[in-house]
């Protein structure tokens, strides 16, 4: 996984894959796609870099990623509760669906990345 061709192509393709993932998240409420699908594409892009370039540079991000994941889910539930403050039901839609898509997209991205980093880290330690 460390040949020169693979490294160069990954380095040049990475912004386009990230852009495509962000596009699928943002257009999720009008066309096929949405939070989960876009999040998986973003995670795949970063995982490609991890597989090609090795895990060493990513080890120091793990605590920050865990915090980001938990903050994401808490924000989702709290935005759902804003509806209660205005007198209507939980998870009422008053223009917040794109915002929730973005939160879910970020959470799925971080979650899948953490899952893979833990699996690879386990293997290396043994």
């Amino acid at each position, binding site marked *: 996984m460390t040949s020169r061709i693979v490294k160069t192509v990954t380095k040049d393709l990475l912004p386009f894959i990230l852009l495509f993932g962000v596009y699928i998240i943002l257009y999720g409420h*009008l*066309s*096929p796609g*949405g939070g989960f699908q876009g999040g998986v594409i973003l995670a795949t892009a970063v995982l490609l870099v991890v597989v090609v370039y090795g895990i060493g540079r990513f080890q120091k991000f793990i605590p920050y990623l865990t915090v980001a994941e938990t903050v994401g889910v808490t924000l989702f539930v709290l935005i759902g509760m804003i509806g209660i403050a205005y007198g209507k039901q939980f998870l009422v839609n008053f223009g917040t669906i794109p915002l929730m898509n973005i939160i879910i997209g970020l959470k799925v991205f971080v979650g899948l990345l953490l*899952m893979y980093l833990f699996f690879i880290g386990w293997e290396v330690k*043994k």
Partner: protein
Amino acid sequence: MINGLNIGIVLFLIGLYGIITNKNVIKMVMSLGVMGNSIVLFFISLGYITDGEAPIMTSGVKQIVDPIPQTLMLTMIVINLCLTALALTIIVWLYNEFGTLDMREIG
């Protein structure tokens, strides 16, 4: 006769056969994946209406396929992902403890 519903049920039974007769633990998890995807196929072909189009509300669309099973399947795919990740974590842990991947030797 060959439509999504029947192929879904056939794949489900193939997955079930895979879980019963495999000794290797990772192959059992793969059979679980086959079963999950067969349910996805089954559900999506439930909502098919002949000559319907994809459920995207652009102008000039007359008849759309039922979008509810597709929504349910999005949720189910996410839950299956979590289940597979958990099963593989338990398998790595088992391998660290026992040193073998054979179901009959471990338990």
